Every structure is written in C-alpha cells, then in structure tokens.
C-alpha cells in the first residue's frame, strides 16, 4: 500500500513541516507579543534556559500602554524542528498572545542601536572619524582622547563597524539587540 501523504498536507496546517531531519542550524527572529505583567519576561527567558534553546539577542519594551502589551524580539538559533518547537512552547505560555516568525512569515526589517567608545589620539582618531562618516555613525560624546559613536543598522553592519574600530582603539561597546518588524501593511 502506498500512503501518499505530502508534508504539510493541509493548507490550514499550523505547523511548519519542512525537512525535520535537516541538522543545519538557522537563525530566526521571533516577535512575541505578551501581556505586560510581572514575570512575563522571566517566563520567556526561563523557557529558553530550561529547555536548552539559544538566545542570540533579546529586546523588550511596552508597545501598547492601553492594551498592556509588550513586544519581545528574540533572535534564536536552531535546527528547523527546534525552531518549530520553540514557537510552540512560546505559544503555550499563558500571557503570550502571539508569536510571529519574522524569518519565515515574509520579508522583514531588523535594526539595532549600538554605542561604541573609541580611545586614541593622532591618526587613529582621524581614521575613526572618517570610518564613522562612511557608516553614518554620529559622535555623541567627545574628549581629547576619545569618541563615543552612535550607530543604527543591521547587526551585521554593527559587527563590521566594531571590527574596523577595534585596531583604532575600540574600548567599550553597548548594543541594544535586534528590534524587527514585518515589511508592508
């Protein structure tokens, strides 16, 4: 007997049935809309630590004061089956209202804010300023021996900026983690 059954056999399937045996780790950005109540962030983070999932970055802030909603943006990493499981587990948390996978649900944009302190004098200082201009970074603090740059962009852009600043005297950096939204209406 041949049981012809295609993966994702129903159009209404709530499940992502791509090859579960693929062992390749993927990076996914999840937007989790939660009830803004005490402990909700601990529940989400506790889920990741308790079940051994990875968090690359996490940002959270209230987005709807009237509706008591906060938005948690999580960048995580895992095989396709692990990513499906993470989403299902997040969905089980009682104060979680919605879970969106911005990586698979359509095009999305990601931005991160970074502050970078570069310490140096002479040519290094001039070079740092020149590179900052190319990256459209702003100087938001300056002393005779240091700058603090503010830069917006994708995590990759911030990584590239940090790599270039390192030989020029990068001493500290603070990054917000990724905020992301789906494109379009």
């Amino acid at each position: 007997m041949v049981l012809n059954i295609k993966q994702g056999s129903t159009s209404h399937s709530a499940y992502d049935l791509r090859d579960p045996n693929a062992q390749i780790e993927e990076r996914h950005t999840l937007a989790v809309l939660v009830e803004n109540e005490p402990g909700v962030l601990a529940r989400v983070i506790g889920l990741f630590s308790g079940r051994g999932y990875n968090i690359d970055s996490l940002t959270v802030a209230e987005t709807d004061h009237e509706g008591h909603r906060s938005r948690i943006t999580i960048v995580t990493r895992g095989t396709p089956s692990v990513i499906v499981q993470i989403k299902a587990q997040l969905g089980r948390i009682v104060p979680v209202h919605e879970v969106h996978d911005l990586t698979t649900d359509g095009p999305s944009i990601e931005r991160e804010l970074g502050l970078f302190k570069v310490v140096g004098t002479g040519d290094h200082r001039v070079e740092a300023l020149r590179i900052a201009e190319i990256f459209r970074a702003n100087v938001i603090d300056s002393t005779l021996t240091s700058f603090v740059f503010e830069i917006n962009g994708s995590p990759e852009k911030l990584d590239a900026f940090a790599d270039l600043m390192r030989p020029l005297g990068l001493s500290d950096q603070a990054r917000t983690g990724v905020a992301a939204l789906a494109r379009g209406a």
Partner: protein
Amino acid sequence: MSRKMTGARMIVEALRDQGVDTVFGYPGGAVLPIYDELFQQNDIQHILVRHEQGAVHMAEGYARSTGKPGVVLVTSGPGATNAVTGMTDALLDSIPLVVLSGQVPTFLVGTDGFQEADTVGITRPCTKHNWLVKDTEKLAATIHQAFNVATSGRPGPVLIDIPKDVQFAEAEYVGPKQVDTSNYQPRRKGDIESITRLVELMEQAERPIFYTGGGVINSGPGASQLLRELVDATGFPITSTLMGLGAYPASGKNWLGMLGMHGMYEANLAMHGCDLMIAVGARFDDRITGRVADFSPGSVKAQIDIDPSSINKIVHVELPIQGDVGHVLEDMLKIWKSRGRKTNSEAVRKWWTQIEQWREVKCLAYTNSDSVIKPQHALERLEALTKDRDRYIATEVGQHQMWAAQFLQFDEPNRWMTSGGLGTMGYGLPASVGVQVAHPDALVINVAGDASWLMNMQEMGTAVQFRAPVKQFILNNERLGMVRQWQQLLHGERYSQSWSDSLPDFVKLAEAFGCKGRQVSDPAELDDAIREMIEYDGPFILDVLVEKHENCFPMIPSGKPHNEMLLSPEAEAFSGGAALV
C-alpha cells in the same frame, strides 16, 4: 448588592463558587486568615495532611479520579517548597490543580522575611501558570482565572501566591461569571480537512494501530466512549501508554495491552511494524519510543493533541491535528461513518494474524512458586479478588508499578492513578487517600513497593484521621527493585545502594498509626490475606513478602528500539513466520 469582604473570605467564597468541596492542606502563619474562614463554614471540607507533598499528591488523586481540579492550600516558604514535587508531577501528567500558597505581607516581600521564599519564582517552571496577587481587588478574579487555566486546554497545575495582608484587606467580591476568561481559550475543534485526510488513511491502512494516552482520559468520559466506538467499529488494534490505561477497556477485543519500556511484546512490535499510527492524546515519551531513530520506521503517523508543542516534539508526524481528543474523535467517527464505514478489512485481518503470532510469545510468563510469593502472582490474585468491585488503583513508582500496569485490568477511565511523567516515588499512598476522599465507598488500593511507600508514609495518619479506608498493598522485596534490576542487567551486578536495610515492621507500623496490618509470605495464605485487607473496615497495610530478585519483563533497555526487547526466560521464543521487524 455590594459584596465587600476580606481577601480570606473571598478565597473561600471563590472556591465555593467554583464548586470545590474538598481542600487538601496544612496551616501556617501566612495562611491563618484563610484557615480562620475555613473554620467558620461547612461547605468545604479540609483534609489535614502530614506533609505538603502529600497534599498535592492527594489533590492529584482526587483530580485524576473525578475529572475535577484538585485544590491545595499551603503556607509560605517551606509550605510552598514542599509542594514543588507534587506540582511538577501534575505538570508532567497534565493533572488540573489549583494550589493556593500564603506569602509574607507585601511590605516584607523581598526582605528575606520569616518563612519567605520566592514562590512564584520557584514554581514558575513547575506550573502551567502562576500569580502573585498584590491587591485584594484582583484576588477573586485571579482565582477564577486560575481555575479556567488549570482546566482548559491541556490541564495542569497553577499556583496563586497570596500575601497575608492581601488576605486581611477588604475589597469587592466578583463571581466567576463576571470574570473575562477569553484571553485563555485554547482551540478545541480539530481542522476538518486534516481529520478527513486521517479518515482516508484509515480506510486504506493495512497495518493500522491506535496509540492512545492520558489525553483521552483528560478529555473526559465522552472521549473514552467515542474511542471505544471508533476502535470497535474499525476493528483496529489499540495500545495505550501507562497514563491512558482504562480509556479503552482491557477486556475489549482489540486491546493489545500497554506499550513502552515494560509494555507488551505484541503492542511494541505492532507499533514497530504498523503502517498507520494514530496517536491520540499521547506524546511520544522516551519510555514509549525507545531509540527515536528506529521508532516505527515504516509508518505514517497522525497525532491528535490539544497542545501544539506536543506535536512534532520527539517524533516527526505527517498528519498533525491540534484539538481536544473528544471533539476530534467525534468528527473522525462522523466522517468515517458518512463515507461508508470503510476499512481495508482483508489486510487488517492479516495484520491481526501477525499480532496473534506475537501474542503467542506470552511475554508476561513467569515461573510461579509454592514457597515464595511471586510479585506477578500477587497482582494476579489481587486482580482476581477485586475485579468485580468498584475499584480504584494507585501506585508508587518502580517494578511494582509496571507489574500493576501489566497484570491489573482497567475497564473504565479515571480508575488508575500513577505517576507517569515524573516517576515520583511516594505518590501512591497520598494519591490513594485523595481518591478515597472523593469516593468514600469505593475500594481504593495503593499497589506499592517497600521503598516508595516509606517516602510519604506519614500520610497514613491522614488516612486514619479522616477514616479513609485505603488499602496499602506493599510488594516488599527489601530492595529498590527497579534500580536493582538495572544494576543487574546494565551495571555488572554491582548493587550500589539498592537494598532496603532496617525496614520497619509494617504490621506494627499499621498498629502505631491506629489501623490494621498483616504480613504474608506463604503463597497459600495470600488469598486469605487479600480478602482480609479488602473486607477490613478501615485503612489496612498488607505487607506481602515477595521474591527479592524478580525482574520485570518485557523490557526495552534505554536507547534500544522496540524490536530489541528483552524477554523473560519463561516467554516463548518468537516463531511466527516472517516478522515485519
């Protein structure tokens, strides 16, 4: 009408409005106002336990045997931490519980106050949800929400932490109907297109099997009824997990017995060789699957579960159906009937022939003895002497638990209380008390091992105080039997710490608690001893001295696939034709 009252009164009022008749608990400083309110009413009985873990397991026994949520009341700090094991147990077995814990007053929270613990922090991963109520205004609504969360969707334990000043302060009471629970309403109906696809697969399947679990029982008696109708109408074989025993009757013609690590040979081989697996409220636990890579390699798998995170978690499922088991089974039956009640009956007949050959292995065979009581024999006699009664069975955890699952027959749901997911030794005695409180006239037996039973033996005091005539059937091998078995089979017979030294005299212990005990070691006296236990009007401890080195077979060693089961020396070698395995 204004209904202003203290938080403590509000709690009792809310419990009453939720239909609660019994609370299992233990008083302490941070819950004194609630105990004061309980003192002044007669609608809710309070069962005073001897240890908070016992309270939670009693509430589990109560919940599992009635289908209603169990309610627990404990004090702050140690009261709450002692309840953690029970809540974790209930979480893994999806048992609805509402646990109320006292907390130090809000102005002391965070100061390391006397008997302060971060209860919501500690219990966050072992509850379905929990709340710290800082304002009496929100207390009643939170309790009603808690009952909704505990019992909706996949059931589970919830905890409400209530500081003492919140219990004293006054506010307006709100009833259950005034509380909006729409923010937590899990989906119950399954996707009709998927269900239709499953029915198509059932019509074609040559080697189908129903693999059912605790979800059927949690879905209510209606789900068990529908399951029976569907299984009997299709003629498909059915097996069940430990948690699902009784959903389909053990006396039913399509019953293969339990599957899994100590499951029946025929059930495990049928799972391995099937071409269509219909998982109903079962979650592919590691004790079920064995080595996942070799689990039922040739089958199309469909899974019905109310919890989407249980689907595709361990085993890839081609046809997932998210929904309540009862609703989905109803739709399945309706669609299957409307399409003409078709099955591939010729092929299914052949499949049964194959299963019968596996059955001939007689995997539960053991050598009986005239001189020493074999544990399997003890359970066979218990079954024979109690099967015609209104009987509930609880167990502890270990060999005796597996033998009970193999040798006792369950024809109805909600009659089998056992710690499946967490495997909590010490579960059975308090669970049996909880069952007895809910069913005062029923015969409630805890099948126990000597080691497990000692873990919560203080609850015999509760049984005696509340005249709960629970029967403690202890299979005493003076060993941690399952540990000893693994050490024998897998750790070179090095029996590290797996024997029970300095065991109490269980008969004297029974007398010390104010109930009755008897020891039996002669197989010829076993029936008489069991009869005395059953007929005694009160709690009874029967200390059955059994063979000390008996192993529980069949057994799938950890990490092995279903077709590499270890069989007892007494089982017949498999001789039937071309196996599918």
